C-alpha cells in the first residue's frame, strides 16, 4: 500500500442497467440520451415535457404515458392504482389539457392475492371518478412468481385542449413568482417510512391527488400561467432546475416560505433527506406574473388541495440556469439538480 495522496478513477460507463438509471437524476438522463433518444428522437420527443402535444384532425391533444412500480403497493394515503391514475392525469393537466381518457396495462405477478387486485382495481375506479376521466382500454399480463413484484401498472392518457394556452419554461421572466399548492415531500417520505417500517406519532400520508380541478380553477379565471409542472420524482428542486435550465433564467427560493409538514421535516432530518428532493404526487409548481400571485394563492387556498399554498420563490435575471435559495439564516446557497441520493421505486 503506498502513502501517496491518491484516489482511483471510477467506472463511468456501466455495461448493465443499474437501479440508479431509474433515479430521475443525471444517470437517467444519460440513459435517455445515449440509449433511447439516440434511436427514437423526433420533433415531438424533442420538446421534453410531461405530455406530448400532437394535433389530430385539427384538434390539439395532449398524450402521455407512465409506468408505476411503487413498493409497497399499498401505502398511507394511497396505493399503486390511485397513483397510476392521478400520475397520468397530472401529466396531462400541467400542460394545460383537460384529462379525458386513460388506458390501464397490468403486469401481475403470479400469486398476487385476488383481494389485493380487486382493491387496486376499485381504487382505480374511484380515482377515475374523482379525476373525471374514463378508463377506455387496458391489458393484463401475468408473469411467473418472482419475475415481478406483485403488480406493475402502466397508464397512458389523452387530454383535450379546450382553451388556447402556452405553457413553456421560455415564458418565465425576471420577477415572476413561483407558487406551490402545499406541503412538499409527503409522498416520498410516506412510501419510504412504510417500506422501512418506521412509524411516527402522527402519520405521514402521501399527497397523491388529481391536480386537474385545481389547475382548471386557476386557468378558468383567465390567469396567464407562464409555466407549470408537477413536482414528482426528484422533487421540487429537480423540477425547478429543469425550468431554470430550459428557460435560461435564475430561480431564487425562500427557505422560510417552503411549506413542509412538521413530521416530514423531522423524518427528513432523521434520515438525512432534503425535502426539496423528495417526490410529491399531488403538487403543482406554477410560474406566473407577480401581479397574479395573490389571486393564484387565494384560489388555491379555496381548494382542498391548496390549503397550504405559498409563494416559494421568484424568477431572477441573475444566475441563468441555476436555482439558489435564501436560507433561514439569511445566507444564499445553490439548490442543485438531484444526484447521488435516491429513493428507488417510490412511484
Amino acid at each position: 500500500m503506498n502513502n501517496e495522496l491518491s484516489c482511483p478513477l471510477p467506472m463511468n460507463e456501466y455495461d448493465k442497467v443499474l437501479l440508479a438509471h431509474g433515479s430521475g437524476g443525471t444517470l437517467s438522463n444519460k440513459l435517455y440520451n445515449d440509449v433511447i433518444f439516440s434511436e427514437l428522437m423526433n420533433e415531438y420527443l424533442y420538446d421534453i415535457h410531461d405530455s406530448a402535444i400532437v394535433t389530430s384532425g385539427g384538434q390539439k391533444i395532449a398524450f402521455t404515458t407512465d409506468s408505476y412500480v411503487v413498493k409497497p403497493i399499498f401505502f398511507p394515503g394511497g396505493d399503486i392504482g390511485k397513483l397510476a391514475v392521478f400520475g397520468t392525469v397530472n401529466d396531462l393537466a400541467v400542460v394545460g389539457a383537460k384529462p379525458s381518457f386513460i388506458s390501464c396495462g397490468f403486469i401481475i405477478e403470479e400469486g398476487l392475492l385476488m383481494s389485493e387486485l380487486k382493491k387496486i382495481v376499485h381504487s382505480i375506479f374511484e380515482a377515475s371518478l374523482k379525476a373525471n376521466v374514463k378508463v377506455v382500454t387496458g391489458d393484463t399480463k401475468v408473469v411467473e412468481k418472482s419475475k415481478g413484484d406483485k403488480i406493475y401498472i402502466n397508464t397512458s392518457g389523452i387530454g383535450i385542449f379546450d382553451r388556447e394556452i402556452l405553457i413553456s419554461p421560455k415564458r418565465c421572466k425576471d420577477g415572476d413568482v413561483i407558487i406551490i399548492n402545499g406541503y412538499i415531500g409527503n409522498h416520498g417520505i410516506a412510501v419510504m417510512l412504510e417500506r422501512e417500517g418506521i412509524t411516527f406519532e402522527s402519520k405521514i400520508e402521501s399527497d397523491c391527488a388529481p391536480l386537474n380541478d385545481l389547475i382548471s380553477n386557476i386557468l378558468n379565471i383567465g390567469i396567464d400561467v407562464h409555466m407549470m409542472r408537477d413536482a414528482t420524482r426528484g422533487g421540487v428542486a429537480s423540477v425547478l432546475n429543469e425550468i431554470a435550465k430550459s428557460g435560461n433564467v435564475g430561480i431564487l427560493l425562500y427557505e422560510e416560505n417552503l411549506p413542509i409538514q412538521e413530521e416530514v421535516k423531522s423524518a427528513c432530518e432523521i434520515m438525512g433527506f432534503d425535502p426539496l428532493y423528495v417526490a410529491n404526487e399531488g403538487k403543482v409548481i406554477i410560474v406566473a406574473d407577480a401581479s397574479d400571485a395573490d389571486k393564484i394563492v387565494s384560489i388555491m387556498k379555496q381548494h382542498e388541495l391548496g390549503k397550504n399554498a405559498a409563494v416559494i420563490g421568484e424568477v431572477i435575471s441573475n444566475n441563468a440556469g441555476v436555482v439558489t435559495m435564501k436560507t433561514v439564516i439569511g445566507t444564499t446557497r445553490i439548490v442543485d439538480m438531484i444526484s447521488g441520493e435516491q429513493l428507488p421505486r417510490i412511484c
Partner: protein
Amino acid sequence: MKYVEEYRDPELVRKLRVALQNTAEKKWNVMEVCGGQTHTIMKYGINDLLPPNLNLLHGPGCPVCVTPIEYIDAAIEIAMNENVILASYGDMLRVRGSNFDLLSAKGNGADVRIVYSPLDAIKLAQKYKEKNIVFFAIGFETTAPANGQAVLLAKRLELKNFFLLSAHVLVPPALRLLLRDNRTKINAILAAGHVCSVMGYEEYIDIAEEFGVPIIVTGFEPTDILEGILMAVKQLEKGITRVENQYRRVVVKEGNIEGKKIINQVFNVVDRAWRGMGIIPQSGLEIKEEYSDYNALEKFPLTFKENINNKLVCIAGEVLRGIKKPFECLYFRKECSPEHPIGAPMVSSEGACAAYYHYYKNKTLTYE
C-alpha cells in the same frame, strides 16, 4: 421542529456573526473535522458569515471517503460469494474499489442490501438462516458501539450466519498525522461532536497541548458551528490552546461509558490504512480474537492485495487533509460529479467535494 430550529435561529446567527467580526483580528485557519459539519457549512453558506481573515479547512471526517480501497475490494469479493447477503450503508455502494463498485457487483448478481443500522443486518440474519449475512461496518467511533453491540447480540441470539467486516477508523490518530504535516496550516480544530458523544474528549487534551492548537468539541447546526469557531478564535487571539466543549447538550467529558465498554469488549486497536492518507498507526478497530466467529475476514479468508491501480488522478488526499479545497481540483464539476465520482469525497453526502458540488456558490454567480 423543536430542539433543531432553535439552532438555526437567524437572530442568534446574527449575534454570533457580529461577535466573530469583533473577535477575529489576525488570520486564522480553523479545521472542522467531521463531514457532517462540512455539509452544514456548505448547506447554510456559513463561509459567507465569516470575516475574510477566517478560513475554514475541511477535515478527513467522512467515513466513506477514508475507507481504504482494499476493504471495498474485500466487500465485493465477499458479496460475490453465492451464499452471502452483503449489508451496507447506501453511500458505500458507489465507491469504486480496484476494479468496480458494489453497485456493479449488485448488477452482476451479488446480493447487496442497503441498511440503515447493523440491527437491520441482524434481522436479515434471522430471516435468511441459510445465508451468510455480512455487515460492512465503516465509520468512526460514533458507529462503533452499535456495530459492537450487533456482534454481542449475534452471540446472544446464537446466530451462526452474521459477520462483521470491520473497517472502523479512529479520529485522534488522524488528527495527530494532520497536525504533524507541515503542508496543513491548522490553527484550531473543531472536533466532531458525535464522535465525542461516544468517546468524550479526554484524549484530545494531550493533542491540544502537544501541538498547541485549541480544540473545540462542536455540534452540527449552524449556530453550533459559528459558536465553535468563535470559541476557537477567542482562544487563538488570547494565545490559549485548550480543549473546550461547545456541544454541551450532547457531549460529556468522559463520553458514553457503556458505549466505550462495548468498543473495548469487541474490538482491538490496530494500524489501519486510510484512503488518501496512507497507514496511520493505531487508528483502526478490528474484531477481537474472542469474537472471531463473527469476523468476516476469518470466515472469508481474503488476501489484501497491494493496490497497483492507485493512479494519481484526483486531489482527494489533499482535500481530506485540508491542504486544498475541492474547487482547486481540475476535475471538480467537470469530469467529477456525484454521478461520476472520481474521488470518494464526491460520492458520500458527507464528502467535502459533494458538499461543495451541491452548495458551493461559483464565483460567477451574483447575489443580492
